[in-house]
């Protein structure tokens, strides 16, 4: 019953994600979805639909089938699109080579590529597969014995109510989709279009909220970790991008000594996340730090940041923003080179003030680089922030600054619980895949793979 339902859903998702312009497309997509869904379910031996499995596991099984169906469908669509016209991905079709290609033995390119491919297979692909396999097991670090847990490691992270787990994300996706549809269909001259356009960016908020409510809250559940990660990454990304853009705008001016300013503003890029943590550990230290001293001189009794959840998170955000600022400044400076200058001059002649020129001409031109920075800053605040946290708070107080990567090391290595740690890795993996999918969708063929 569960198997049939999930394969049915997989087929539909495959068809939708592959594209259903013609009947043949739809059938092919459905086949791909069916393949994707059955590959993952068969790999796990259909264990989530066994009689003794929890119902949350069954829901997760259906989700898993749908996710793999989507990956197969959308992935094949992307590959077909890219190989169709060479320029989208910089071209990896043979059309890019008009002249100057070597005509030697077939093994030449493979020989040149083999070192790269071997390392990627052994140290990226193999561990990735292993992560998925470990996530379904109960196994300890260094111990040879393992037991099958099916999706038990995952259902532990979620609320024990299978209905909520299924309904909330579906509702959020439905709302997002609905707003998108409304936006496309509405007449651009009516107020309804304006409302839809304003609402559209908030679609993601519904999804984030839904995820908040499906994570387990009782006894040290994952909801706390999710919230920490969300607060710290959103805070870091928003502040570092706003300040980075402001600084870049200032240091793009043609004034004396600007190269000195730039060098002195960019260098924190070279500082490591652990050292950013150490420097802020010193400044914010309750007994010896300058921040507490200055605050008490002004009559403010600042609590110890290691005891106060909000202050601890804020300190981590501050340290990360400080470290990221130089990087963002550098790339925004590069982006400002692409701003159409004649347009700015024309707008100035037409009487547009500085803010209007910035809002209407500079910001849109910075779109692609801003998007690139959004992704790199998010990656930073997901993963590299580990070093900063390890030196600043070590997750204190009471786990209020333990973000996903920190928790996964604590569970997987410090507690030696490899299976549970791997399950958290998979959750993080899904977040990364979701982000990348969003990135592909946003940039729609104008990504430059050479630039990152």
């Amino acid at each position, binding site marked *: 019953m569960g198997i049939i339902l999930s394969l049915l859903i997989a087929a539909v998702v495959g068809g939708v994600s592959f594209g259903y312009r013609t009947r043949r497309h739809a059938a092919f997509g459905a086949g791909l979805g069916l393949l994707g869904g059955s590959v993952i379910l068969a790999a796990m031996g259909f264990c989530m639909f066994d009689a003794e499995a929890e119902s949350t596991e069954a829901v997760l099984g259906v989700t898993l089938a749908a996710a793999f169906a989507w990956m197969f469908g959308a992935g094949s669509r992307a590959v077909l699109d890219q190989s169709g016209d060479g320029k989208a*991905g*910089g071209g*990896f079709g*043979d059309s*890019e*080579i008009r002249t*100057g290609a*070597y005509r*030697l033995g*077939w093994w030449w*390119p493979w020989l*040149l590529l083999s*070192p*790269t*491919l071997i*390392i*990627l297979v052994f*140290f*990226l*692909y193999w*561990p*990735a597969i*292993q992560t998925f396999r*470990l996530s379904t097991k109960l196994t300890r*670090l260094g111990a040879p014995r393992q037991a099958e847990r099916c999706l038990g490691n995952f259902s532990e992270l979620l609320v024990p109510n299978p209905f909520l787990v299924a309904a909330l994300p579906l509702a959020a996706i439905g709302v997002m989709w609905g707003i998108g549809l409304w936006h496309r269909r509405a007449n651009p001259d009516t107020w309804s279009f304006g409302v839809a356009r304003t609402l559209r960016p908030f679609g993601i908020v519904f999804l984030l909220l839904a995820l908040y409510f499906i994570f387990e809250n009782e006894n040290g559940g994952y909801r706390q970790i999710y919230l920490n990660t969300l607060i710290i990454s959103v805070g870091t990304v928003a502040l570092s991008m706003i300040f980075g853009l402001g600084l870049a*705008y*200032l240091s793009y*001016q*043609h004034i004396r000594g*600007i190269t000195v*300013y730039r060098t002195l*503003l*960019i*260098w924190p890029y*070279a*500082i*490591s996340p652990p050292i950013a943590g*150490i*420097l802020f*550990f*010193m400044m914010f230290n309750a007994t*010896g730090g*300058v921040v507490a001293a200055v605050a008490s001189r002004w009559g403010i009794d600042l609590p110890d940041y290691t005891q106060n959840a909000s202050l601890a998170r804020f300190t981590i955000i501050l340290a990360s923003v400080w470290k990221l600022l130089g990087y963002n400044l550098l790339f925004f400076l*590069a982006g400002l*080179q*692409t*701003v159409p200058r004649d347009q700015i001059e024309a707008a100035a002649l037409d009487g547009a003030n500085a803010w209007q020129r910035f809002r209407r001409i500079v910001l849109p031109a910075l779109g692609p*680089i801003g998007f690139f920075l959004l992704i790199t800053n998010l990656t930073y605040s997901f993963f590299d922030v*580990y070093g900063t946290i*390890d*030196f600043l708070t070590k997750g204190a107080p009471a786990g209020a600054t333990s973000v996903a*990567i920190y928790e996964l090391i604590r569970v*997987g290595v410090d507690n030696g619980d490899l299976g549970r740690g*791997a399950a958290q*890795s998979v959750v*993080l993996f899904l977040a*990364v895949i979701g982000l990348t999918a969003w990135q592909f969708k946003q940039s729609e063929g104008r990504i430059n*793979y*050479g630039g*990152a």
Partner: protein
Amino acid sequence: MAEREQSLSLNVGKPGLIKGRSWPIHLALCLAMIIILFPLAYAALISTQTNAEVFRFQLTPGTGLSDHFDQVWNERNIGRFMWNSVVQAVLITVAKTVLSLLAGLAFVYFTFRGKWIVFFFVLITLMMPTEVMILALFRFVSDLGWKDSMAGLVVPFAASATGAFLFRQHFANLPRDLAEASQIDGATPLQFLFRILIPLSWNTIGALAVIQFVFVWNMYLWPVLIVSDQDKQVVQVGLQGLQGIETGLTFGPLMLAALLVSIPPILVFIALQKPFMSGFALGADK
């Protein structure tokens, strides 16, 4: 008009986007600079002070610097950590540059069956951050017996999609006649790579080298997991020993060590700033 030409010759780009007096901009930039420099300047001050001086909030340099240096350099042996990091950084940078050059060569100057599959296979790794699979990688590398070894620190990071795509992009923008001419001369692909492509790619190589050096030097999570022998440890993890609260934390040595460890990447960054900017970040205006 004259001003514009002058600004171009100064190589600082075209005139700014804000019109008007320049002192408000100077003021704002100075303010930003002070704020950004403050954590480091403060760490430098603390690094000279004994704990007693730190708790008195003394604003002048203290008396502890030579003691701290002795503690950091001789007792903690931070030079040893730095040497390990230098070896790791050089090995990874060289390996990654060479492998990326070879991959770029294959992608741009060869046509072969299944090229797009290989391309896709490499491309996908861009969305597979090591951190996500770090537990399985840790177990795999431990099983290889590479714990506490340079191989464990270097080999997993010796290849990257980023590098391969960087050179692929760069080669694709070079004139096609180069390859034709060298083929007519009968040069093998490797001769072509070393005699023609590499001399034309120093900016890109420099950019990749800066990124890799800073990346490796600042690496933290992986060495925490894979290295437990203090003699094999790298710098960022080596700092942990100085923060050990149990033995009674002294701020000075920790700050001094943090500053010492930060010097090499900042120097590399400043020294290679030019190729970095022109080869990587500002590649937008080819």
